[in-house]
């Protein structure tokens, strides 16, 4: 019974934890511009994050070593440092976007400018990290994030022509004034939003925080294989709402307000309240995950003591890294840069940085020295290698497409 509860809780947490500011913004934006014509990318991305997270979760459960510890070990000091810098910068950029997202949600609810909310949001993130137990923060914000299911219900309430949505989903390609270049660019953005690297750093380090061993493989797998795909369905619902409400009238999504409006149109003030609470939980939860991931990656690369399973003073450098990252986020947001724009760039850079951390995990998941019986099977390796190809392709194409499309204009 207790075990079943743990599994259910893990799955629910994974669903709520999957969606962050990147998924919210990118899915709504793409839904408004292309309808469901890029829905297949969400499916491809979800399968990818399942493969990637399952491998790193399994490696943690068997070897007890989290992702960045192993990345340095396999890539060596120099290449490892390159992977660290790239992954860290992307994670920091995501953290900035998430804190901006929390502040924007408060701005929408209160009408008070987000720049005033932002230092408060960053401070609250730090306080929770400093004081709250790991399992609590993961569960509370994961469960609250489930409120975003309101998007799925809103889509149904908006009463779309389902046949039309299916038709869009099955006929990929640009429409109207869009070009193949913008279509591909947003494809990469969606892919990066679904497969953001920090999700895996957090997931694998969380495995150590919660002291996983071989017996936890069932929990780990059910979280990944049920939780993430259901989270992916939430993403599709967000895109669907935008496709129904915005595509026909030529609205392009550029603000968080536009992302939340469909719930209000469908359910009125209650819908808006639920969606704002859901957005707050999803972005605040992701802000916790990304700041922890900033600390995890650096501390694990250098072999420092890290983690919330020890008291803060025992992992002092780890905590200092997170404090510095939060201060940096405040400083960047103070320049009044648009957090939604930051989000749009962060998902593309996420797609670019992915192969650097994916490859070492694939290598280690195949190493009998570590994994023994639990190493990758043939079928899994086939898909893992296909995804390695896809990741490389997206990574190489990202910059040229960004230049050609002037970042998707």
């Amino acid at each position: 019974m207790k075990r079943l509860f743990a599994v259910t809780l893990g799955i629910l947490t994974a669903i709520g934890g999957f969606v962050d500011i990147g998924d919210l913004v990118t899915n709504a934006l793409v839904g408004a511009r292309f309808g469901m014509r890029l829905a297949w990318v969400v499916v491809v991305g979800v399968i990818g994050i399942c493969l990637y997270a399952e491998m790193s979760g399994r490696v943690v459960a068997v070897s007890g070593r989290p992702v960045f510890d192993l990345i340095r070990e396999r890539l060596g000091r120099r290449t490892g440092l390159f992977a660290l810098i790239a992954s860290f910068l992307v994670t920091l950029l995501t953290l900035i976007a998430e804190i901006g997202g929390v502040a924007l949600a408060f701005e929408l609810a209160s009408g008070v400018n987000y720049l005033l909310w932002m230092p408060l949001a960053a401070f609250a993130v730090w306080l929770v990290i400093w004081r709250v137990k790991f399992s609590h923060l993961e569960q509370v914000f994961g469960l609250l994030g489930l409120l975003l299911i309101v998007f799925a219900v809103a889509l149904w309430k908006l009463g779309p022509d389902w046949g039309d949505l299916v038709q869009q989903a099955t006929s990929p390609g640009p429409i109207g004034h869009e070009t193949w270049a913008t279509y591909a660019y947003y494809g990469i953005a969606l892919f990066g939003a679904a497969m953001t690297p920090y999700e895996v750093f957090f997931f694998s380090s969380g495995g150590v925080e919660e002291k996983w061993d071989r017996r936890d493989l069932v929990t780990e797998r059910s979280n990944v294989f049920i939780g993430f795909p259901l989270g992916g369905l939430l993403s599709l619902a967000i895109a669907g709402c935008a496709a129904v409400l915005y595509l026909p009238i030529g609205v392009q999504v550029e603000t968080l307000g536009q992302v939340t409006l469909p719930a209000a149109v469908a359910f009125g003030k209650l819908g808006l309240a639920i969606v704002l609470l859901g957005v707050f939980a999803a972005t605040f939860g992701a802000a916790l995950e990304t700041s922890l991931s900033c600390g995890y990656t650096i501390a694990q690369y250098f072999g420092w003591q890290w983690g919330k399973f020890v008291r803060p003073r025992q992992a002092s450098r780890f905590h200092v890294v997170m404090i510095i990252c939060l201060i940096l986020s405040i400083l960047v947001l103070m320049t009044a840069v648009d957090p939604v724009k930051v989000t749009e760039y962060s998902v593309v850079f996420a797609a670019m940085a992915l192969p650097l951390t994916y490859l070492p995990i694939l290598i280690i998941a195949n190493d009998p020295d570590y994994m023994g019986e639990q190493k990758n099977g043939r079928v899994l390796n086939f898909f893992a290698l296909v995804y390695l190809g896809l990741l490389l392709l997206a990574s190489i194409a990202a910059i040229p497409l960004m230049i050609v499309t002037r970042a998707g204009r």
Partner: protein
Amino acid sequence: MRRRLAAFGVTASLVLSLILGLAGCGDPDQQMLSEGARSAREAVSGVRTAQLAAQSLLGGRIWAQPATVMVTDAEDALGQVATTFDARQPETDESRQTYDLYSEALANAADGVTDLRIAVRSGDLETVRQLVAQLDKTAEQLEQLGERAQ
């Protein structure tokens, strides 16, 4: 093989950006028209968003604060579209005409949304209702202008 593929990728993207670059800086008349049309489409987005937010406010579906934030955001976006377009320099008579046409339409839309923001902020729902109806025409006009070029 791998190197050749990479080289192909680089060349292809260079060629592509060159073509797109040339398309942008070819005929000044055509260029003004396509920039104007693109700005008009962006303006449609702002006008329709403001309209949708205001309608939701009228229908009691959102409370005043989010409505204000959304309309203000739309106003800012429209202002930016209009300023960016206005900064262009028409080089021929024809492009001058195109410039004036689009510039006026954009300014018109920006003003309309500014009026809407003022009404929403002051809670004057009757004016909001009138402005929402008016903005319909503005959006339709912009939509037509937006379809004149790719």
